[in-house]
């Protein structure tokens, strides 16, 4: 049977060579790809994932590089002179001009060529605030996900590998953390922070660590579940026979095999954390209003005047949150499909 098949192959090749006039080298034509290349190819075939990636690159450039190019700073205020025109910062008698009678704060100015998105209630440049706000949102996302992965992968790995009573304790902890309602809890924590007199500027760092600590349970559950099934694989018996340490078995042999799921979860969580942080900032329990964040910028909408007459003050930050979270979800979904060998197109 096999020989027959080989013969027919040879015959086909000869037919082809007669047709094209030369013998083709099958091996040279064969496409060899590493697993990484296969994943990359699958990923870039997904149009939504590419859209997500492009949005993320633009957002990161806008928030990280943008502030260096902006002529204004985050907390700079602008004033209107007595003539109703904005006083430029470089006029020699600046302080006199802004204190003369009739001069006032240039608040809620409509978008024009000087202030691309107008000015806020406090006379800040909206476009510049949007860049700084994005910095906060992205930074919160990355740090919270880092903390949750650190805790989740370690504890999930230990629970899955060692099993027994260690597993029981860690999984009960996971359930406790999962059963605590998140937003009410953050409301309580934010007032505890006021009680401890934590400076406004540092509050965001504490919030990030607390969010990471509250979010680890999901990661731990995923890692443990995967490791439970990987632990029974034959290559783990081989590792056992090799006599290497437990921690090394977890870090070198088990975690790398859970990596695809961890990466997908981390990407999706980045979006989720940014969404949660913006909700908290909107409720006034995240980033303090002194510093811009997309969430507390949308909060301007609670003033009826701004909602009706100044959509340029709350729609751009809202759309920014929507697009960045959407992008993380697109990329995460694309990665999930790309890592999954069953999802061939």
């Amino acid at each position, binding site marked *: 049977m096999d020989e027959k098949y080989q013969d027919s192959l040879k015959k086909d090749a000869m037919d082809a060579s007669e047709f094209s006039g030369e013998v083709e080298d099958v091996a040279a034509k064969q496409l060899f790809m590493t697993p990484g290349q296969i994943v990359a190819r699958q990923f870039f075939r997904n*149009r*939504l994932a590419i859209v997500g990636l492009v949005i993320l690159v633009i957002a990161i450039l806008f928030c990280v590089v943008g502030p260096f190019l902006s002529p204004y700073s985050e907390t700079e205020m602008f004033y209107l002179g007595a003539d109703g025109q904005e006083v430029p910062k470089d006029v020699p008698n600046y302080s006199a001009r802004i204190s003369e009678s009739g001069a006032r704060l240039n608040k809620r100015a409509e978008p024009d060529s000087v202030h691309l998105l107008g000015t806020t209630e406090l006379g800040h440049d909206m476009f510049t605030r949007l860049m700084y706000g994005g910095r906060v949102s992205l930074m919160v996302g990355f740090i919270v996900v880092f903390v949750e992965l650190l805790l989740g992968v370690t504890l999930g790995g230990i629970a899955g590998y060692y099993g027994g009573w260690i597993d029981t304790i860690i999984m*009960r*902890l996971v*359930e*406790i953390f*999962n*059963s*605590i*309602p*998140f*937003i*009410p*809890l953050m*409301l*309580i*924590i934010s*007032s*505890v922070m*006021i*009680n401890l007199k934590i400076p406004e500027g540092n509050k965001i760092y504490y919030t990030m660590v607390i969010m990471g600590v509250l979010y680890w349970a999901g990661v731990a559950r995923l890692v443990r579940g995967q490791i439970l099934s990987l632990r029974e694989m034959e290559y783990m018996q081989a590792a056992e026979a090799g006599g290497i340490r437990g921690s090394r078995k977890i870090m070198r042999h088990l975690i790398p095999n859970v990596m695809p799921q961890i990466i997908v979860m981390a990407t999706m969580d980045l*979006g989720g954390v940014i*969404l949660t942080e*913006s*909700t908290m900032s*909107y*409720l006034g329990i995240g980033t303090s209003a002194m510093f811009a964040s997309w*969430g507390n910028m*949308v909060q301007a*909408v609670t003033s*009826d005047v701004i*909602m*009706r007459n100044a*959509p340029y003050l*709350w*729609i751009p930050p*809202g759309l920014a*949150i*929507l697009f960045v*979270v*959407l992008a993380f*979800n*697109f990329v995460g*979904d694309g990665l999930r499909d790309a890592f999954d060998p*069953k999802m061939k*197109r």
Partner: protein
Amino acid sequence: MRQFIIRRLLISIIVLLGVSMMLYALVRSMPSDYVTLATATNPKVTPEMKEELRKIYGLDKSIPEGYVNWLGSAVKGEFGVSLKFNRPVTQIISEYAPITFTVAFIALVLELLIAIPLGILAARKQYTKTDYIITTLVFIGISMPTFFFAALLKKWFGPAGLNWFPAYGLLQARVIYNGFSFAKLLDYAQHLVLPISMWVVTGVGSMLRYTRTNMLEVLNADYIRTARAKGVSEHNVVYSHGFRNTLITLVTLLGSSLPGLFSGAAITEGLFALEGLGNIALTASHQADVPYLMGFNMLLAVLTIIGYLISDILYAAVDPRVRLS
């Protein structure tokens, strides 16, 4: 099976104890307790009177001592008297829970009505234009910040825009209804259009994705190919052979969405000024109302655990392998 349920119940009790300990410690470390807040504007109150008040409210005890007291009465079903509203916590919860629950329940039913047909459609037409459009819309819904979408709805359809629906509250303040009437029901309905739309749009996504993923898995299974090979009609293949198996996992998902019916309310109710449990919790946390916060958060925790329990038991009922581990 019975042993499995008993074991899960015992574990749930331990988890609840852990949750209540953490919550109590946090709630009690809130700033300026209720007495300080409530008497702040009254200069006649002496420190001695404040001490006396703290003793009455049970705030003079240390955190562990207070916790033991709280636990002792909570086991008997007494959650104390809300400091802010001066009424028993259980009474407040039973009065406002129907509002919260009704809103959430209508939203959940609408979500299911949208998610299941569209999820099946997306799975049947995987990687076509229909699938791409549904997937994109779903992701927009998942990624939409609730407060931003609420603001957009209020701007477009509320009094500031088309003025189709009221943007705040549950009933018109100026109208007095005597007893139950159709007009009152209509008034409720009008006020609930915007909150429920917000809830459905931001919540339908995860359920739709879930249906699609499960449906895809089922439709690629061997027995579906067999059914097709037998010549079963496409409609029957999808609905009687395919969907029936997706339904099992959907039911377990419903179990775990039980707590979401209440916890999601804190934000929705705050945004649309609906008088429900969540909105009261927002005020209570600004006022350091320890008994109400404990009561509300424990209600959520109990619901979460019941949700897990239901989905675990349903899962075990479906999949015998789970029972053994």
